[in-house]
Structure formats: C-alpha cells, structure tokens
C-alpha cells in the first residue's frame, strides 16, 4: 500500500476518458467553481449533484463547466452520491467513479494516484486515508472522533480501514453497480464501506492529504453530528 510516486510527472489527463468524478454539492458556492475548474484540468467528466442548494452553487458549478444534476429537494450527501452512481451507471464508457467532496479539501493528485493504483493492481475500490501518513493534522478532538468512526466502521463492516468518512474514493464501475446506498445523510460513509466490502471485490487504501482550510474547518462535521451518524447506523 505504498504510494506509487513514479507517476508524478505523468500526463494529468491519463484517466480522463473513462473516469467520472461525482461531487455531491450543497451550498458551496464560494469554493465549488475552483474545485470544478481544478478537476476539469485532469478529468473530462465532472458531475455535480446539486442537493437543493440555496446559494446558487449549481449555477457556479455549471459555469465552471461541470455537468450538474439537480435534486428537487435536499436529501443529504449519501443520497446525492447514490444519484451520481445511478447516473454514471447509464454511461457505458465509465470504468471508474471518483467521489470527491465539493469543499476543496481533497487533492486532485491523490485522486489520480488512486486511479493509478486501482488500474495497476486491479483493485475495484480504493479508499483514501488521511491516517496512513502524517501529512494531515486534523486536531486532537477531530482525531478522536474520526478514530471512533473508524472503529465503528471496522466493527460493522469487517474491513480493516485506517480512515472512515473520507470523501475521496475510487470505485470501479462493476463495484458501483453492485451497491445501493440507503443512508441519505452522513452515515453513508460507513454504509458505503459496508456494502463495498460485501461485494468481496479487491480493495486498497491510499494515503491522501486533506487540506484543512479555514473554510472546510468551519463547514466540517460537528461533534454532535457523530451522534446522528451512530443512531442512523444502529436504528433503521
């Protein structure tokens, strides 16, 4: 699970034709334009699922060049991801789906590296993990919450991940077609691991860096929301 570093000078558009980037979008108008423009430098297919944004995020994403789908009402990030998956499933050219957060905390180089790994090692699923190296410092409280989330995820899924609730994932189309997310809200992060794990397809983890900007810190998961995630997972 070492990061393949030999590809750093490779063509940034090497994965563009067969990869769809799915970006759940809810009220991120200040950053989504830059995120989409960044993604389009490496990918041809960037799909934003506007989850009922009220701040004009959809228009910003559209002007930046993304394909924008609209949820008629706000459903939650998990629902937006699943809508993206269902949409990509209608595209026969799509071999890989990249899930990417709209708030700009992921690095595109990491996504490209994960795709390299998926293709070179024939992995169906690559999970991004911020805890495989020391680049990311989430702070003490957040680290405790995230580590608890990982424990709960590992306990319920049987996989051995080092990071849960990381929005950067690479999923091969056959794996995408074999899962359906029922958790509309944030508990989907555990659900997606659970359901991908059940497919029995080969998976890897890849060290990624999360860019904790002031913006993403302010938007991030509150401590109380982890209670919601737990209840959503346990009480169905």
């Amino acid at each position, binding site marked *: 699970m070492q990061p393949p570093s030999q590809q750093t000078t490779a063509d940034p558009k090497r994965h563009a034709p067969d990869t769809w980037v799915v970006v759940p979008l809810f009220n991120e108008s200040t950053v989504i334009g830059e995120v989409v423009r960044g993604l389009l430098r490496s990918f041809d297919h960037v799909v934003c699922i506007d989850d009922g944004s009220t701040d004009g995020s959809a228009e910003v994403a559209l002007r930046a060049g993304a*394909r924008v*789908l*609209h949820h*008629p009402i706000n*459903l939650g990030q998990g*629902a937006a991801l699943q*809508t993206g998956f269902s949409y990509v499933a209608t595209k026969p050219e799509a071999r890989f789906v990249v899930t990417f957060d709209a708030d700009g905390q992921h690095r595109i180089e990491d996504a490209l590296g994960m795709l390299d790994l998926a293709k070179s090692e024939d992995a169906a699923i690559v999970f991004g993990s911020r805890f495989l190296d020391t680049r990311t410092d989430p702070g003490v409280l957040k680290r405790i919450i995230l580590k608890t989330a990982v424990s709960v995820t590992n306990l319920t899924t049987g996989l051995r991940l080092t990071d849960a609730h990381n929005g950067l994932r690479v999923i091969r189309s056959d794996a995408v077609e074999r899962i359906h997310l029922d958790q*509309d809200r944030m508990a989907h992060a555990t659900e997606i691991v659970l359901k991908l794990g059940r497919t029995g397809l080969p998976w890897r983890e890849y060290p990624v860096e999360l860019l904790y900007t002031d913006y993403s810190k302010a938007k991030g998961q509150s401590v109380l929301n982890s209670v919601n995630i737990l209840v959503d997972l*346990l009480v*169905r």
Partner: protein
Amino acid sequence: MTMMWIQILLVVGVILAGIFLARPARGDSHLALRRLFMLLFVIVAVVSIMVPQWLTWLANLVGVGRGADLLLYALVLAFLVTVATSYRHNVATNRKLTLLAREITLARAAAEDAGRGDAA
C-alpha cells in the same frame, strides 16, 4: 429487593418497544399487530369505564396500588410505542421520497443528455 410484577411487565414492555423499533419494517404483519392492539385498547377502555373497580383490581394483581397509576404506566408504554412506530413510518416515507426525487433527477438528466447529444 423483590421485583414487583408491574416492574417486570413494564421492563418487558419497554424492551419489546425497543426491539420493535430495531426490527426491519414489514407492512402487513405490522398493520395487523396495530389493529389487534387497537382492538385490545378499545375493549380495555370500555371495561374500565363500565367497571372502574376492575382497573384497581388488575392494578393490585400486578402490584400497583391504584388503577390510576396502572393507567399512567400503560400510557407511558403506549407513548413509547407510538414514538417508535411514527419514527419507523417516517424513515420509510423518507426512503420513498428519496427514490422519487432521484427518479426525477435522473429523468431530467437523461432528457438533457439526449438534448445535447450525450456529452457528460
């Protein structure tokens, strides 16, 4: 300390409500149970109105002093079951709403894609 009958009954009732909450939703048996429960409720209510002493007799039988207290306990239990069922109902309705909204989203996207010669 010896457990009173009412304590056992209430604890069992609370646990059953909890299990009911965690159980996957099943349409028909769920509805049938609710109707049976309603029937039982009506019968008990009518009997209690016609023969008020009966409630106190029943209360004494399970270790509660007054019929009114028993009524309160039963009410708490009924409230818990109501919360549980309405929560489950809510979850099921949200599920349907999500699927409906997704269908609308995808139908619109497909129409747009067809309109622009399928360029994602």
